[in-house]
């Protein structure tokens, strides 16, 4: 372990999936990445580039085939058992038979927080996501954006220092999406959590991130990292020249990566 505090450290990670027919899919090849505490890092790339796989490895939902991952200096398994991260997926994944409040309290309940502690925390979170009036509603009574807000509140329930998000806004319309991005920025500023955010939207990645990690497929690897340092992330940023420069930089890197892998990619399709 090094002395510098790192939220996530990924070193030379390989991931190979074996298919049923005995074939191999090289999902990740020699991927290295560090995420600092409080840093917002997006993973972007075309389908099959392994961005979701990388997030799942950090979350210890899958195991690495080679290389090493550390989360707060621990193995991903230990970090998972210590509940060092909160997680949200493209599907909100709420339990339909639980109310909004009971869904937010789910991780607290599993980890033995008493009823009063749970209620205090879910009150805070409901206020944070602006759904106080829906506490006793069931998920089927909510819109897609509301469900996703509940899922994010659930991910933040235990005040994790790391949030892992796999295309959490992927299923939302553009208007809701931008609104949710603004909310996420506010939430992250409040909590100071590091975020690993998987997306395939360039503007979304640029708007949210301190760094955008561009990946390419077959095998999944990192082709480049775009550093972004905006003074403030608010509605004005979306119209700012610096924002468009960021978008262009990410797009250029994405397309360059695709051109490089071109002939093989075409053949494999």
């Amino acid at each position, binding site marked *: 372990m090094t002395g510098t505090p790192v939220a996530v450290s990924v070193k030379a990670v390989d991931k190979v999936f074996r298919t049923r027919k005995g074939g191999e899919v090289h999902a990740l090849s020699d991927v290295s990445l560090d995420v600092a505490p409080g840093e917002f890092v997006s993973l972007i790339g075309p389908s099959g580039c392994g961005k979701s796989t990388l997030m*799942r490895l950090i*979350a*210890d*939902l899958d195991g690495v085939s080679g290389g090493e991952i550390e989360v707060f200096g621990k193995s991903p398994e230990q970090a*998972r*058992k210590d*509940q060092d*991260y909160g*997680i949200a*997926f493209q*599907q909100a*994944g709420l*339990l*339909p*038979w639980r109310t909004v409040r009971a869904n937010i309290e*789910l*991780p607290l*309940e*599993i*980890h033995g927080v008493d009823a009063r502690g749970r209620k205090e925390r879910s009150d805070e979170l409901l206020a944070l996501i602006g759904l106080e009036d829906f506490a006793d509603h*069931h*998920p*089927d*009574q909510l819109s897609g954006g509301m469900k996703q807000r509940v899922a994010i509140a659930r991910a933040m329930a235990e005040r994790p220092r790391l949030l892992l998000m796999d295309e959490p806004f992927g299923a939302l319309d553009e208007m809701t999406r931008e609104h949710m991005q603004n909310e996420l920025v506010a939430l992250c500023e409040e909590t100071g959590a590091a975020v690993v955010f998987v997306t395939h939207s360039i503007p979304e990645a640029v708007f949210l991130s301190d760094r955008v990690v561009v990946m390419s497929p077959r095998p999944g690897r990192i082709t480049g990292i775009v550093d972004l340092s905006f003074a403030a992330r608010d509605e004005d940023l979306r119209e700012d020249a610096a924002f468009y420069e960021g978008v262009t930089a990410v797009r250029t890197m994405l397309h360059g990566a695709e051109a490089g892998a071109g002939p093989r990619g075409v053949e494999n399709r």
Partner: protein
Amino acid sequence: MRTAATARTVLAPVALAVVVLALWQAWVVAFEIKPFLVPSPAGIAEAFTTSFSSILDASLATGLNALIGLALGAVAGMALALFANALRFLDRMLVPLVAALAVVPIVALAPVFYAMFGAAAETGRQLVAAVAVFVPMYLNTLNGLRQVEPVHRDLMRAYAATAEQANRVLLIPGAVPYVLNGLKIGSSLAVISALIAEYFGGPTKGLGIAITSSAAGSNYTGAWAYVLGAVLLGALFYGVTAGIEAWSARRRGGS
């Protein structure tokens, strides 16, 4: 709107029943059909009202056996499904047994149970009902426990939830609609099995015995009155379990 729709769903079958009964009555009267062939609905209704208290007693006796069998079979089916879902080898061990139980006419077990527990005791008849209920309960519960979305499985792993916790917060609540559907199917089977088991003998005061002894005593209209009692008992079991299922579905909301 809602009352109109309810009225339609209730009134339509009632109207059909009235028409069928009227035609039946007219047919029996017009062609002077003998009661041992087909008694008239009016005759059955009369027999039903005059011997109402003994029909009620017989229904209570058979109904109690069915209820105990339903409870035993439901608990056993759910419990074994929980274990089978957790332990793959147990699941594989149980597959042929459950398949055998599903194809064997379970009332055929009645004489065997009578030999074991004595025909006079109700135990044999309750066990027949229990075994009949067990099959749909086991299969439905197991199916329900396996309806877990990948995102929920990931969540449980991310929360480092134990198998017991995952069962409690995810698998069992998720299986409830399947369990209640199994219970609804099982409720009819419990009544049928408890009743048919009485055909295999034993001094009982149930509906099955009443039907056979009325028919044997040439009291055909009386036998039909007891059959009507059996229909009502089965409808009661089905209605209550279907009601529980509908209530639960309303309470949970959609997905």
